[in-house]
C-alpha cells in the first residue's frame, strides 16, 4: 500500500487523505517506524514552528519538538482518533510548552488592553510576491510580527498561532487549551488587536 503523504494532504479535509491518515495512524499504533517517519515528514516543521514561537530559545524549542514526537510515538496506542493527528500533536506540544514555562517560572508578559481593542483599521500592504524589494519588506514585516508575537502572553500567543497560523477550528482549540469557545474567540480578538497595535507602531516608526 503506497502512502505518499505530505503536510498539505494530511491537513486537508479530503476523504482520500483522511483514509490515508487513518492508515498511517493504524500503522503508527502498531509501532511502524516507517509510517511514523511519514507523519514526521508531514508535521515536523509545523510543530517546530509552533514551539519555536512559544519558546524563545531555539535550541530548547528543537528539544521540545523532539520530545513531542517521541511522546507521540510512545503513546500512539492512546490516540483515540476523536480529533485529528495534527490537533493531537499540537496538544502534546502545547502541554510541553506549558510545562516548560512552569519549570522556568517566568511569568508571561501580559498585554495591556487599553487602546488596542479597535481592530477595524486595515493596513495598506501590497502583494509583493514577484517584487524583490517587496519581498524584503515582507520579510521585515514578518520579523515585526514575530517580535509582536513574542511579546504576547502565552494564552494569546497559543490561540493566535493555532487559529491563524495552523487553521485549527475554535472548538478544537478550546478543547486543546481547556477553555470555552467564547474565551478562545476573545483571546484571538485580543491577540490580533495586540499584533495590529504593534504593527501600527512599527509602520509609524518606519515612516518617520
Amino acid at each position, binding site marked *: 500500500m503506497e502512502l505518499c503523504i505530505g503536510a498539505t494532504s494530511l491537513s486537508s479535509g479530503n476523504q482520500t487523505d483522511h483514509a490515508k491518515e487513518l492508515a498511517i495512524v493504524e500503522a503508527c499504533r502498531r*509501532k511502524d*517506524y516507517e509510517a*511514523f517517519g511519514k507523519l*514526521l515528514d508531514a508535521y*515536523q*516543521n*509545523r510543530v*517546530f*514552528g509552533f514551539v*519555536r514561537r512559544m519558546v524563545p530559545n531555539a535550541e530548547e524549542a*528543537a528539544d521540545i*519538538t*523532539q520530545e513531542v*514526537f*517521541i511522546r507521540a*510515538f*510512545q503513546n500512539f496506542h492512546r490516540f483515540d482518533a476523536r480529533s485529528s493527528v495534527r490537533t493531537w500533536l499540537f496538544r502534546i506540544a502545547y502541554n510541553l510548552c506549558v510545562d516548560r514555562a512552569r519549570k522556568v517560572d517566568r511569568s508571561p508578559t501580559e498585554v495591556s*488592553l487599553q487602546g488596542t*481593542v479597535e*481592530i*477595524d*483599521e*486595515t*493596513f495598506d*500592504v501590497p502583494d509583493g510576491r514577484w517584487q524583490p524589494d517587496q519581498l524584503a519588506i*515582507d*520579510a521585515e*514585516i*514578518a520579523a515585526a*510580527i*514575530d517580535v509582536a*508575537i513574542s511579546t504576547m502572553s502565552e494564552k494569546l500567543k497559543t490561540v*493566535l*498561532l493555532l*487559529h*491563524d*497560523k495552523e*487553521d485549527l477550528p475554535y472548538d478544537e482549540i478550546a478543547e486543546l487549551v481547556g*477553555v*470555552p469557545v*467564547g*474565551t478562545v*474567540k*476573545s*483571546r*484571538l*480578538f*485580543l491577540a*490580533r488587536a495586540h*499584533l*495590529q497595535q504593534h*504593527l501600527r507602531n512599527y509602520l509609524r516608526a518606519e515612516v518617520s
Partner: protein
Amino acid sequence: MERSRNNEFDKLNLTEQELDRMLESEAGNQVRNFVRSMPEEPVSMAWRSELNQKLSAHIRTQERKRRFAWIVSPALGLGLAGALAFVFVFKGPSIVGSPPVTAVKESKLEEKLVASIEDNLRNYDMTGVGLSPDEVVSRRTTQTTYDIIEAGFDSL
C-alpha cells in the same frame, strides 16, 4: 478559574455575535493573513537524525523489555507453580494437621507395650520362672485350704 475566564470575556464588553463579526472583519482577516504568511523555519537534518536515533533507541529498549518479559514471565510462572506443588505435595499434611493424631496413637501404643512388659516382669519377679500368675494364685489358694484342712482337726 471559571470566574477569571468570564472576566476575560467580559473585559471586551462585546456579545459573542459582535465578537464573531469583528473576527471575520476585513481587518481581522488581514491580521490572520499576516500570521499565516509568516515563513516556516524548517528543522535541520541534524535534528531529524538525532530524533531518529532517539526513536531507534526507544524501539530497541521496548524490544529488550518485551523479550525480557517473554522469558521471565513463564519462568516466574513455572517457579511459582513448582513451589506451590512442593508445598501441597510434600508439606501439605502438616498443614492439614493429621500427623499429630498418628503420633499420639503411636505414643499410646508404645506406652501400652512398655506397661505390659513391666507388668510381665513384675509378675515374673513375684512368681518365678515357669508359673503364670494365675497358677500362682490358684495354687496358693488351694495350698492354704489344704493346710487348714490338714492342721485343723488334729490341732483343734
